[in-house]
């Protein structure tokens, strides 16, 4: 039996070219999941090593960025589980119902005339993002902040496009409400309370 076994230098060069170009995006995603620089670096390193080890199984025709995000999420969820915390991939049904309570808030229509967009301060978005439940946060990060298509985000999150869409919708609502609150705190929006 002949097993194809590329030279390690070739594999490393290809990995650098195909996968490590997404290092910045991975780092930002990790940072927004963990809120901690050291932990984010650790998580990205673990992700890259896992990806490198299974790089021979990666289908060259498929989306590398989505594949890397998937690995990073699983590594992150493993850490959460080890810390005894809930993860969205554990019991999706339970998560969805838990999210319902949060999203009743999101169902309230946003005021289309809100004018805080120009006044959002540096760091406000990340601060608001932290208040979002994980499934919404992930969807917003991947699509709105990293520019993934719905299809790519669905691959990365392991869910159908319809789910990406609904999480994104609710995530954006919650985010917008939080940013509106900050704008009022900053004093840019007044007289609405």
């Amino acid at each position, binding site marked *: *039996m*002949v*097993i*194809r*076994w590329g*030279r*390690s*230098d070739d*594999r*490393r060069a290809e*990995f*650098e070219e195909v996968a*490590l170009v997404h*290092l*910045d995006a*991975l*780092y*930002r995603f990790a*940072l927004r999941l963990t809120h901690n620089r050291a932990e984010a*670096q650790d998580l*990205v*390193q673990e992700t*890259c*090593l896992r990806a*490198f*080890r299974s790089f021979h199984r990666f289908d060259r025709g498929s989306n590398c960025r989505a594949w890397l995000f998937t690995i990073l999420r699983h590594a992150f969820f493993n850490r959460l589980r080890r810390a005894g915390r809930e993860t969205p991939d554990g019991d999706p049904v339970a998560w969805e119902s838990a999210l319902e309570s949060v999203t009743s808030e999101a169902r309230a229509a*946003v005021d*289309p*005339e*809100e004018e805080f*967009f120009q006044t*959002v301060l*540096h760091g406000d*978005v990340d601060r608001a993002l932290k208040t979002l439940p994980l499934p919404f946060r992930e969807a*917003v990060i991947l*699509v*709105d*902040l990293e*520019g993934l*298509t*719905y299809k790519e985000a669905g691959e990365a999150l392991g869910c159908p496009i319809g789910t990406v*869409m609904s999480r*994104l*919708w609710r995530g*954006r609502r919650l*985010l*917008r409400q939080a940013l509106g609150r900050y704008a009022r705190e900053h004093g840019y929006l007044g007289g609405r309370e």
Partner: protein
Amino acid sequence: MTCQELHAHLPAYVDGELGVVETLGAGAHLAECPRCHLLAEGERRFRELLRRQPRETAPAELRARILVRCRQEAQRAAIRPWVAPVLATAAAAVLIAVFAVGQPGFHSTPLAGDLVAQHIAYAQIERPAEYATADRADLEAWLRQRAGLQAPVPDYSAAGIRLVGARIAGIRGRKAAYVLYEKGHTLLSVFMLPAPDDAELAGPRVSYRGQEYFAQERKGYRTVWWTDGPAVFGLVSMLDYDALFECADRLREERARQSRL
């Protein structure tokens, strides 16, 4: 499209993720409904706000650390395929090699024992090639410069045997060119050195395509060697004899081609 339908489709609409029919439907509704139009504008501007967020980059130090770890990982992965089948028999094979060299009169061949010992030793090293390249001309040039050896490096790729690189080895006190190939996980060692005296060379004779060779097998390691002018060539591998003789034949051809140049 009604207002309610539009609201359901709004995020996908501003993201450009709706199908053609829905996009046209949404566009038509927005043209007529000022309130939905305002809503869509708000949605679009919010999306732009998010896309405008500064993008932090990963620390250079993180990138460097990952590259180092990948390199270490690759080296570990490289040693495994060769070591796994070899380790079980390595101890026994080394004993035979030492025995063959150390005892005059032992019917095994001193040279073959040395070649097998070298083969086993380097099959267990993380990076067996001192100079790693898959480029034959590059490797021939390196052997010429490093050891002053005009060593042929034949192309075995048609048989799925890939060139790994080479090193300079010492065999029976002589400087030898040692070229490494691999087929799948199996290492093929090719040695070329100045011919020692006949006693060291002797072994069971085999004829293949009209050429005379010496050949022996010990514990799964097959060795084929022959003299060609002032040089002796030796092949060691766990590949079968068919493959080894075919490689030997190609090597002779390559050697003849080289000397014609």
